[in-house]
């Protein structure tokens, strides 16, 4: 595992060497709180007779305009919708792992809900831990959560979902 820092060695000079953590807003906060518990949940309208899922989260439902919402648990199964392999110039912590993959995953439970992420070899592994030759659009993936690892490496302890290729 790269860049594993503890809270005690957090230092501003090191920030340049860390991967970015989510800058969370009110609407997105529940997603990250559930992620910290190892759950992939998506915002859904809680109005009677609606129930539409929406992502990214927002204050009200674009279908029925209700402000009532709940967070529905997803199976974590998905398929790669597209991906890129970024090369430098990049922020230092990303350049250190480049080229790495960044993917958009469409959820099996709701294909119009898509999440940006990284396909890794095992939970907590680096962004470049999977051979790019194994990536293809349509490949099945499964969400995995590891606190303070992989894309969230660093002192923040923020848990972000990662994706593992399913054996096909």
């Amino acid at each position, binding site marked *: 595992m790269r860049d594993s820092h503890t809270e005690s060695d957090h230092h501003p000079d090191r920030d340049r060497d860390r*991967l*970015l*953590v*989510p*800058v*969370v*807003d009110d*609407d*997105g906060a529940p997603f*990250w709180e559930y992620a910290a518990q190892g759950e992939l949940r998506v915002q859904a309208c809680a109005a009677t007779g609606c129930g539409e899922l929406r*992502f*990214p989260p927002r204050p009200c439902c*674009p279908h029925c305009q209700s402000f009532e919402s709940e967070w529905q648990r997803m199976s974590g199964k998905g398929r790669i*919708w*597209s*991906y*890129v*392999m*970024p*090369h430098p*110039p*990049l*922020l230092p912590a*990303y350049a250190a*792992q480049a*080229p*790495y993959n*960044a993917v*958009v995953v469409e959820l099996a439970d709701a294909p*119009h*809900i*898509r*999440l*940006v*992420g*990284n396909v890794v070899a095992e939970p907590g592994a680096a*962004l470049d831990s999977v051979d790019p030759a194994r990536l293809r*659009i349509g490949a099945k993936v499964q969400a995995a959560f590891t606190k303070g690892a992989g*894309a*969230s490496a660093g002192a923040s302890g*923020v848990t*972000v979902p990662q994706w593992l290729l399913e054996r096909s």
Partner: protein
Amino acid sequence: MATLKDATAIVGTGQTPFARQLPESEKTLACRAVLAALDDAGIAPSEVDGLASYTMEETDEVEVAKSIGAGDITFFSKVGYGGGGSCATVAHLAAAIATGQASVGVAWRSRKRGSGPRPWKNTTAQLPTPAQWTRPFGLLRPADEIGMLARRYMHQYGATRDHFFNVALACRNRANQNPAAIMYERPLTRDMYMNSRWISDPLCLFDNCLETDGALACVIVSAERARDCRRRPVYVHSAAQGLPAQHHGMVNYWNDDPLTGPAWTAARQLWKQADFGPDDVDVAQIYDAFTPLIPLSLEGYGFCGRGEGAAFTEGGALESGGRLPINTGGGGLSEAYVHGFNLITEGVKQLRGTSTAQVPDAATCLVTAGEGVPTSALLLRS
């Protein structure tokens, strides 16, 4: 209902030199471009009463107005979403002039993107939404964000790197005819393209626009006034902005069909207001921050069907003498990347008959702003 059609005209354009690094400040460059445009129009700076630019423009109206010696300003506007706002700056002034809110409008963009900071490196200013859903995963730059759509487009419609090369080559060939272009003396070959370094696979170096210091401006007045100006008027025939339902900005991954972007929305409004259609466009200036934006825009603005944009680029279609010559000054890929403003001024040059890659008897020109973000477009005619 009042209409914008041919009610106003662009009567002056101005530009500074383009370079990777210019010594003067953005403010100075802005003033030089604005004054050059007014001189081109034969209109005194004291007559300017309308201003429009981008929200990303660092030199604000107060600075421009007091520096150039403008009169009382009665209309000023800034348009958001980076290069998506380029054509809207002209559109806002056209609307203001057509409705009597101003009489002499100046739109401009000044940017030191070549020698200044890269916007994506500013991690402290990252917006909570949608950056929280993308940036931690290393989707950091516009090239990464558009690259994601590009690979999906290739997968879904069979587009290839050769199609993107066709775009890069057409722009480079026109730049090779344009002494003001950064790539004037630098031809591009397929070999160079295919062997260049990746920026964000599937996008290579030559799929990305230049990083440029420079400024441009244009002057808009009523059609009546335009007849008395120094230059042949170029009429604003139709103008539109486009923010599609459920659009998400440059990371538009979350609606039902991410590959139909803002161009489709702007196009519907643009053609609805126009006396002619895509088949009647003589030359087009299509926003080219990244090569895949051209096939997407060709589809969106109705030059071909859904998924046919890549194939449209084959057989020299985008070159001089082709089915639709594009970006005849070299565009953002090979002339200069100034948030698309050089596409507007090149459109004016074509309709004046003064382009360095002149399309014979060009009488109609489509100019588009950034695709993939909330956008805007203009139909110009002579």
